[in-house]
């Protein structure tokens, strides 16, 4: 590791902490804001708004403290490297779940399984299309066998 990459790593980690803290502050204040519209009640008879109001404010305080801590100097060992952000993997994996949700009811389990597995496999850049089609076909057959024939889940194989 060169000194330069060390500095970059440090900057990125700090950046991430700042973003995380800020996200928590926004979430906490948002929760508290919504909860302030609910009946808060008294200490003896707490309403449904009491807990979210308190917890939301506490989360915002915590988030602010994390942002402050991100700016303070730290020791190097507290920054384990999580590697680069894997955009492609994230989009494909989350996309695979979305495809399943979108296809399950209109199209049925077998097409949904095929599409889910195929989209998920796009995350690996080096896989060839043939491999993807073969594996997705096998997986959808397996899904039909296990989930419908063996476990008898209340799903239709083909929706149309």
């Amino acid at each position, binding site marked *: 590791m060169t000194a330069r990459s060390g500095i970059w790593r440090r900057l990125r980690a700090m950046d*991430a*902490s700042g973003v*995380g803290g800020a996200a*928590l502050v926004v*979430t*906490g204040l948002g*929760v508290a804001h919504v*909860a302030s519209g*609910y*009946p808060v009640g*008294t*200490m*003896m*008879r*707490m*309403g*449904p708004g009491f*807990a*979210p109001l308190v*917890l*939301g404010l506490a*989360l915002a305080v*915590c*988030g602010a*403290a*994390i942002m402050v*801590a991100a700016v303070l100097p730290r020791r190097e060992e*507290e920054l*384990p490297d*999580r590697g680069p952000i*894997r955009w*492609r*993997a*994230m989009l494909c*994996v*989350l996309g*695979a*779940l*979305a495809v399943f*949700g979108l296809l*399950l*009811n209109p199209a049925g*389990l077998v097409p949904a*399984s095929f599409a*889910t*597995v195929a989209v*998920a*496999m796009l*995350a*690996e*850049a080096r896989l060839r299309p043939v491999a993807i089609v073969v*594996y*997705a076909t096998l*997986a959808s057959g*397996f899904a039909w066998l296990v*989930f419908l024939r063996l*476990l008898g*889940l*209340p*799903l239709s194989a083909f929706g149309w």
Partner: protein
Amino acid sequence: MFDDLLGGLLTVLRPEYLTYSFLGVLLGQIVGVMPGIGALTAIALLLPATFYLDPTASLIMLAGIYYGSNYGGAIASILLRLPGTPASVVTCIEGYPLAQAGRAGLALFTTAVASFVGSILGTILLILAAIPMAAFALRFGAPEYAALVLLGLLAASLISSGSQLRGVAMVLLGLILGLVGSDVNTGFYRFVVVPTLADGISLIAVAMGLFGVAEIIRNIGQPRPAGLLQPVTLRSMLPRREELREIVPPILRGSGVGSAFGALPGTGAAIASFMAYAVEKRVARRPGTFGKGALPGLAAPEAANNAASQTGFIPTLSLGIPGDALMALMLGALIINGIVPGPNLVSDQPGLFWGVIASFLVGNLILLIINLPLIQLWVRLISIPYWIIYPAVLLFVCVGVYSFRNSVTDVYTTILFGFIGYAMILMRFEAAPLLLGFILGPMLEENFRRAMLIHRGDLTIFVTRPISAVLVACCVALIAYALWSSLKKR
């Protein structure tokens, strides 16, 4: 008590329960061996299936996955420095150098034996402690439960390997997420943005997103350390006499440390293994060998995480309060089957209680038997490329999440939590405290509100009732310790 245990053993030895126990530990061993799929994912995946099983069989199987994964987790840690489970991170430190020195067989033998002894000692403690604990817990009222849950949450966030502030933030976020849905006391809808959320956010969706999906994203395309997959022969496993003498005291110490941390609500196997390693390093006669393949540093954490996995059932079964996220999923399995966890479980469901405990003895024996002789098989399992594993796991996640409540919305919730989970990994936030907060949140709110209602909004009852006062004192001590240790670091 002995008769009860014997009855439990007879239950477990019935072919159907024996099958579920075997399936559980086998699956645990497999997911433990394979990096990138954890016990939590496996248990969450099987949770919908427990609809179709009786509660005893469900719990026997899910528990088997839990403690089975500790055995498997050591294998990839030693051979590839890839921890299969969070609890086996420490195993890499001493196990991998041993493998590099050509002593992988000895390391595997040590961890298997340490795991077995730790588990059995932990189970014995569970047998001895669970009934008195449950009897004691019958005296608990709402303030005591609220204080105990608070202690568990504080322990989960403050006694961790990462930053304490971040741990607290994650617990708070989990508590907030647990509020979503209709309020138990008034039926008022909180944060219900789509109708499905009226029943709350699906536990399975949260667990799968944060652990299963986020882990998959992180593991895709990650280069695996080049194979040290040397053939491991059974002969190379046998320790010399002085080596055997070297590992016995650490195993016993590790079991003790692990049992203590397992029984404490809020801390589980992962923390227990770190603590056991720290203890070993401190008492070692030759601390210089640590990090270079010291057997005591390998044996103690493995004994500890297994002991903790067993004693973790003490608060879970006798109080109804899960010690960590995995335990919470197992409690979920009981609740799905209409069994209310709590101090009455022992007297209401003795068959289940003793059957499950007896299954630990049987299951660990099975694990010891399948672990070492089949080592070649497990080693081969590690070398399966990840692209074969993860699409199938993802498909299981989809079907599992959907079929839990027959809800497509839950699949979309999983996407959201998968994204949050991956962002948390990048920003170094831990997911386990969040999940624990999510599960314990409703319990905390309900008991706190009940306590306030009964005692007319008087907060002092938490310190004037003796049991609750002790628990509150523990909370204060924990906070003081956390503040002191973080100030010392600066």
